[in-house]
């Protein structure tokens, strides 16, 4: 299945400033594995030590949270759009 992954600007420094990446994969996990091969620093941004999606990062497939579709093992639909949406706060984070 072909999938397009949209990368938000806070994470583009880890994707060589690419805002969008294309993949051929079967599940969300497959896409992430390929993403981490291409952009190794993305792994720590998205995944915790147990290999689970971090609690402050959401991934949506065709506008629905993948947690609602079965999580990282969710099967892709053809030409689906995956979107990474991290928590953003704004000006500062307690310490600057």
């Amino acid at each position, binding site marked *: 299945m072909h999938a397009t992954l949209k990368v*938000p*600007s*806070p994470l583009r*420094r880890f994707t060589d400033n690419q*805002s969008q990446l294309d993949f051929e994969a079967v599940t969300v996990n497959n896409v992430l594995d390929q993403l981490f091969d291409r952009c190794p*620093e993305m792994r720590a*941004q998205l995944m915790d030590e147990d290999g689970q999606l*971090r*609690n*402050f990062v*959401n991934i*949506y497939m065709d*506008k*629905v*949270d993948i947690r*609602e579709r079965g999580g990282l093992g969710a099967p892709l639909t053809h030409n689906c759009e995956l*979107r990474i*949406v*991290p*928590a*953003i*706060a*704004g*000006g*500062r*984070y*307690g*310490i*600057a």
Partner: protein
Amino acid sequence: MALPESGALPTLSPDELSRYSRHLLLPEVGEKGQQRLKAAKVLVVGAGGLGSPLCLYLAAAGVGHLGIVDMDRVEESNLQRQVLFDVNDLGRSKAERAAAHVRELNPHTQVTVFDQALTADNALSIMEGYDVVVDGTDNFPTRYLVNDACGLLGIPNIYGSIYRFEGQASVFHHGDGPCYRCLYPEPPPPGLVPSCAEGGVLGVLPAVVASIQCTETIKLITGIGEPLSGRLLLYDALAMQFDELQLQRNRDCPLCGDKPTIRELVDYQAFCGLAAQTKPDWDELSVQTLKQRLDRGEQMTIVDVREPYEWEICHLQQAQLIPLQSLESHLSEFDPEQELIVHCKSGARSAKACQLLQAKGFKHPVNLRGGIQAWAKEIDTDMRKY
């Protein structure tokens, strides 16, 4: 939120009928909608990038009572986007100045000033009695605090957030809709996500997000349209695209789930990993001491971990530029036994660099306290600042 009935609504004076004539012409708003706005109490948390247009548009729309919470003072770097303030406000209380400008804009709007931080100790008493809370905060602890307090009090929370060129907006705690904890159960640990102070923000970005928040506030108060509840609106200024994602209430949410466990406000600094700011394991150096050592002709290794565009604005002659993100790949260029002085703009990124150096076995990482900002303020006052 429950809409007040006609009999309980305040009447509009001739001045108000004239001022709000463009609203009155909208059948969806009309006189009753305008009366509902006049009867409404809205609390704006944060009078910064989002809070500035929030206060202006809510007052202009005829909200009868506006509460404004902010503990900060107006700084020069605020004026690029915080359109509520001007040069005469520099150094003065944001909440006080915001209230003054709002009163000039619309004397029909009553304003209550909270020139203080919103904390777990005061949030419930400040927020109680307001019909809507609009989240214009700029940090995760206050964002979770606002969310939780709204949940406990049953007040809708109009959410907005900005970073660089992107924004998010939604409506939380509306009916059976989700809350911020349903969207993000936990905040990122400090340091993982750069702030606007580090990563920047397009000055006009908050105007777009705040205008969406104002729209949602007015819709809730007047009872018109479809609220942005159960949906997350994303705005990408560079692509000039809006996108909408579906949000669902998380049945396991500790605040609004089926079996809630949060029954009172907690320590949000601790929740966001900011509570125990213990003394760092590495040494710190003041800019005065660095100047003395440079004047003595000491040979030192100074690494500037800022970005190249920051280096172009100003830098120390003796420093070498290695942005934080690429520091790890340059470590082999240095002797782990030697002293390595690192600095950034204000000291936060260089603290992360010290942490990295220490983890990689460097014996003497040293953080320049206050960064190049302190150098420009205390040593070389002719240096370009940003």
